[in-house]
């Protein structure tokens, strides 16, 4: 309530300063109302997750989902990390490996391709870019089954590579890479570098990559999150539990309904999003810079 009452005052102050940003009081109220609703909508499940992670298995079912009841967060965390001889830690590391290494490689590949598409003139450039854009439209789940067939032919099913290799190829990264390269790098700069005698490789690594670092971080975050959350690909590809990423591992626990381990599943879910939160918070500055790049021309 206080939120919606104080914010409009701020916009009023704003109105005095700059005429073009004039917003009527009612518009501001409506905007704040909608935003507040959206925030609540997105935060409710998070609140539920945090509250539920502190409950014992029994308390989960005998208390209101949004209120605390007992406190066994630490017992739950111990359970999560000791279940199946500490497999959860392994799953977390797997996820970090898949999303970290996979994300880095995907980003590098995407930015390099995007740079080439934006800055080099060659025959078929439009066709290639069109094909990559087409790839964006195909849901990755659709490609998983053909990938499984191919990988099982060459014996890569149920190995780390089965998850890592598909993660490296990301049309969205190429698309973003191209946009950023086109927006953030004047052709004159590259000309100057060429005149100074820098090789094309050198230009890419020393000039382009540095200029595109906000883009690099943005693409990396996108890739990291999408690989971290990818469920279907590892579900199809992996059968060895020690190769599971954390999402699949938790799901596997959840489906063991003959075991009363809902507390473990919920606490595990909470723990599994912490690395994502850390990644977002620490890279957030770059993220914002990246999103706005190219928006003002």
């Amino acid at each position, binding site marked *: 309530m206080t939120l919606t009452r104080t914010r409009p005052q701020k916009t009023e102050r704003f109105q005095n300063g700059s005429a073009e940003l004039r917003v009527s009081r009612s518009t501001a109220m409506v905007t704040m109302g909608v935003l507040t609703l959206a925030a609540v909508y997105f935060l409710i499940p998070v609140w539920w997750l945090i509250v539920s992670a502190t409950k014992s298995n029994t308390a*989960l079912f*005998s208390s209101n989902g949004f209120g605390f009841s007992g406190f066994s967060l630490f017992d739950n965390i111990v359970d999560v990390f000791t279940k199946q*001889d500490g497999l959860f830690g392994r799953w977390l590391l797997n996820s970090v490996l898949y999303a970290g290494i996979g994300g880095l490689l995907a980003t590098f590949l995407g930015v390099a391709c995007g740079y080439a598409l934006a800055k080099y003139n060659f025959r078929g450039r439009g066709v290639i870019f069109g094909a990559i854009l087409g790839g964006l439209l195909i849901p990755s789940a659709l490609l998983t089954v053909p990938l499984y067939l191919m990988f099982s032919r060459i014996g890569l099913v149920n190995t780390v590579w089965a998850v890592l290799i598909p993660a490296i190829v990301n049309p969205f990264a190429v698309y973003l890479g191209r946009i950023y390269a086109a927006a953030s790098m004047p052709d004159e700069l590259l000309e100057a570098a060429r005149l100074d005698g820098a090789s094309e490789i050198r230009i890419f690594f020393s000039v382009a990559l540095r200029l595109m670092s906000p883009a690099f971080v943005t693409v990396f975050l996108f890739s990291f999150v999408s690989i971290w959350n990818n469920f279907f690909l590892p579900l199809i590809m992996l059968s060895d539990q020690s190769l599971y990423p954390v999402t699949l591992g938790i799901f*596997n626990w959840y489906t063991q*309904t*003959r075991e009363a381990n*809902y507390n473990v599943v919920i606490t595990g879910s909470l723990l599994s999003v912490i690395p994502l939160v850390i990644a977002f918070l620490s890279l957030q500055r770059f993220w914002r810079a990246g999103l706005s790049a190219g928006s003002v021309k």
Partner: protein
Amino acid sequence: MKKSQALAGALTVSAVLALLTGCGAAGTTASAGPVTIDYMGWVPKADKAVDIWNKAHPETQVKYSPVSNGQDAYPKIRSSVQAGNAGCLAQLTLDQVPSFVADGMLMDVTQYTGDVKDTFLDWTWSQVSPGGQTYAIPQDTGPMAMYYRTDLFEKFGITVPKTWDEFATAAKTVHAADPSVSLGYLATDDSSTVAAYAWQRDSSWFAIDGDSWKVGIDDSASAASATYWQDLLDSGAIATTKRWDPGFYSELASGKYLTMMGGAWNTALIEANVGDTAGKWALAPMPTVKGSTASANSGGSAVAVLKGCKYPEQAVAFATWLNSSEDSLNILSAADGGGLYPAATKALDYAVVNKKDSFFGGQNLNDIFRESANNVNVGWAWGPTYSSTDTTLTDGLAKVATKGTTLPALMTSLQTSTLSDMKGRGIQAAASH
């Protein structure tokens, strides 16, 4: 719901893919060193029992991987058998054994079982030996009984119903007194209890008659059971629920249901998920049909030897130890270990099965379960296509929940689809009536 459908789809896809691609798996040659047996199952603390075995048997090391419970696990087990990397042992519910045999997924291990047969309840042994050859070692059974809330029975002034007629009357009494609670429920995601209610009435869904199968999924006993439950549902006295949804335990904790019909393995789940209601529960025999003492069995499983197992002899030895030794059952049958009700005859006397349970007011639950196990109709058999029948039944029950069909209609259509399914696979089959 969506997720589980997606998963089922995914698993089906992977099963099909395995069919297409899994013919050329390379086998490793057996060396002289210790052998390793892979074992898939869903008994919560099975890994602890495996540890004990591994310490005592350095020559036969068992590697346990937990899989999803029941139906969710089967596509995965099937696809890994077809891909040739399934290992040796997998847990199957008893109703699945004939289907897995018919589909060539299991290995005939009769020659390794010797007198192991005598260790287990006769009817469980015949369920793991369809056609007389043995493919699995029985693990546990699910003799059914009625878990009930003593405090709520007192509150509503009802006595423990002995017959299904009394149950129906009491259900109406309770519902009239408080429409927000009910005496029981029909679990539309648990086909095994629906089959069990028919089993109790001496229905015969499948029977071998010479060279052909007799199918009676809509025989008079089965139809009577379906009508009974449909009438109860229609009267509004009970409702449907999803027993394997976590929300079920919220309903149980809130006292929405006064009773729960289930196999013995439910004890552990009740204690672990609705611990706040400790001391308010008791166990009574499941209501019977008037004039009969027959009980029924829900669930129960076996540890099956998978086709392609390289060490069947060691696998049988381990499975027998796992399912009958006191060391192992002290873990598997304990309340926090899965609460298995052993299929091994002598195991019914083990202390772990006969604990006085304070959760149930100090009752020795085995008094009831043992009697129930003795009163199970032993002629019941599962058919060679029950895997798909069970899937159709589960889908149909979901429609019953949304009033898209009725239980009696479901049984009739199940009879038809099962018969055509069997004929489609070249299995001789006819209606039993």
